[in-house]
């Protein structure tokens, strides 16, 4: 992820530098034609979660959003002379992360080992989950300026998974081997069994996004966006997790308007 961010930052810097050189001329031309360019740095806070929470999940015992940053560039084309309505498209590098611990009951699981061994059954107990997903995301939004300083936005986003990590371990509970009638195998006294579904994650994800920004100074904006994934983080034929997992994140940060 780091290398993507660096490369992306360099590109933006280059654009910024060239923009700087011809700034007055180009921006005036662009502005008169209703174009705006913005660079943004943000923080992603949220989770990748089943919705609604299935009955198997009995409690969420801990949640840590972890450090998920975003860096994006977007252009807005205002459609009317008053600059009320517009369209915004962007390119964003972002991490959607989280750490959770949950207590589950009778949670269906199926894990394939390195040698093709299949262990399946029902887990009752603790499940720790770590999600560290890096995406290249393209938001396509409609914008509406409700106030000279405030713009509302809504639309869709398309994401490509650059690097995925969806892993964790189970602890402090027991497995019923096969089904609820199978051998009951407790994992206690600090014994855990780990899982890693990173390679099963879906590459293309999409969803809806709404948000708002506020122009604090002439060039500085603060923003908040809510993105809600509409396809599951895992493909349909992935049977280990029997319910869909949707990434739902709030992206907050500051933007620089050229």
């Amino acid at each position, binding site marked *: 992820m780091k290398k993507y961010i660096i490369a992306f930052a360099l590109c933006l810097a280059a654009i910024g530098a060239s923009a700087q050189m011809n700034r007055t001329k180009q921006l005036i031309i662009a502005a008169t034609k209703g174009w705006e360019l913005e660079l943004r740095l943000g923080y992603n806070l949220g989770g990748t979660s089943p919705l609604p929470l299935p009955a198997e999940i009995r409690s969420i015992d801990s949640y840590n959003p972890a450090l998920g940053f975003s860096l994006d560039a977007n252009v807005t084309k205002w459609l009317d002379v008053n600059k009320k309505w517009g369209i915004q498209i962007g390119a964003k590098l972002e991490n959607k992360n989280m750490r959770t611990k949950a207590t589950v009951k*009778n949670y269906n699981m199926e894990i394939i080992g390195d040698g093709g*061994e*299949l262990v399946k059954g029902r887990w009752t107990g603790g499940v720790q989950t770590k999600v560290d997903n890096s995406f290249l995301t393209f938001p396509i939004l409609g914008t509406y300026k409700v106030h000279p300083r405030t713009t509302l936005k809504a639309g869709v986003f398309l994401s490509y998974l650059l690097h995925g990590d969806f892993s964790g371990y189970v602890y402090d509970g027991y497995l019923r081997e096969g089904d609820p009638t199978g*051998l009951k195998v407790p994992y206690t*006294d600090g014994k855990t069994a*780990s899982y890693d579904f990173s390679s099963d994650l879906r590459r293309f994800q999409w969803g809806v996004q709404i948000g708002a920004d506020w122009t604090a100074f002439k060039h500085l904006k603060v923003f908040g966006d809510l993105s*809600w994934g509409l396809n599951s983080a895992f493909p349909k034929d992935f049977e280990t997790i029997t319910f869909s997992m949707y990434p739902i994140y709030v992206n907050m940060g500051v933007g620089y308007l050229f």
Partner: protein
Amino acid sequence: MNTFFKTILVSVATAFCATSCIQDEALNTECDILSCSLPEGYLVAAPKVDNYTVTLQIQDNVDISKLAPEFEITPGATITPASGSVQDFLHAENNTINYTVTSQDGAWRKVYPVRVVQNMPPSEYFFNVPKLDPQRKYSIFDEVDTDGAFLMSWASGNPGYVLCGVADVEARKKYGDSYKDHVWEFFPTRAVFNGEVSLVDRGGTTFFMVGNEPAVPEYIHLETCSTGSFGTMVGMPIAAGNIFQGFFDISQAIANPRGATKFGEPYRYVPQTFKGRYRYKAGPTFTNEKGQVEAGRQDECSIYALFYETDDNVEYIDGSIHDADFKHPNLVAIAMVDTKGQHETNGWVEFDTPFEMTGRAVDYDKLAHGGYKIGIVISSSADGDYFRGAVGSTLDVADLKIINTNTETE
């Protein structure tokens, strides 16, 4: 337009709250017999309750035609016949009555054969009713007398090996799509038969048969096997082939593996010598509990028998006796077959090993009522209980027999 924005915000917030709350707990799906009890003085030893069966060792003087065992079952589940109802085990086939436990949600059920045993424990072992577990994966061996009456069931670590999933993979490699009848061949503990045997389903249990009779194994074959990635993950990279008298408590298998092997069956004789024959070949590469190769070290097997007194605190001596260098305050005698330093035998080796008395006196009245236990313990890797050994070590055993000092008094 502000109203529009507010509407969106409110609806999103509502949707999120409505969908992300913890739902009501689903009804229980489990249907276990957790424990079984009978009036004081009825039992020789604590009931053996595993995931599929209940075995009750009953004192000779108890009338088993009117027995009312009480069961503790999964909360919310139901049991028929009812817990505490009077049953006639005397006239039931094999002194066994089937109890059905149904889960709270009604979707799952298990039929537990509850078996009552009043027979004398055996001193000579034939493994003469070999069968498969209810999931038809691994071998289980019962001892029956010449009339076919049940005497005892051998325990092994086979149930634990199910959890690593390796046997299915190996069976599929060799047999392709028809692998399901062959999974047992890839478990660490199994039998070798003389001639053609078939798997026959009788009343829900799959038996190894020759024609109409149970197939009597030529010998028991124990092999140290790899447990694959799942075994390594829990610090148990190998599974030694093992067979022992007693009980494999899978509830302790992960957290306390040596405590999971509970040795001993009620015994009413004082043992003198432990006889039998074995054949051993160590596997090529010795690995430790982390799966790392220990160069220069070679595997060896272990064969021994414990004789001990039970009391309020000691229902079983378990595998942790290995931690204590085979010393235990309740131990009366031990017969340790000398296999040390032996990495390969020249064919079959006969042994006749005397029980060494620890000095603990035998209470003969208690002995007559089953207050003592005998535990034969055999493993294809002597340190397999610490997950140290060589994959591919094989130990074959046959003709096991205990010679007793007081046989004539019984």
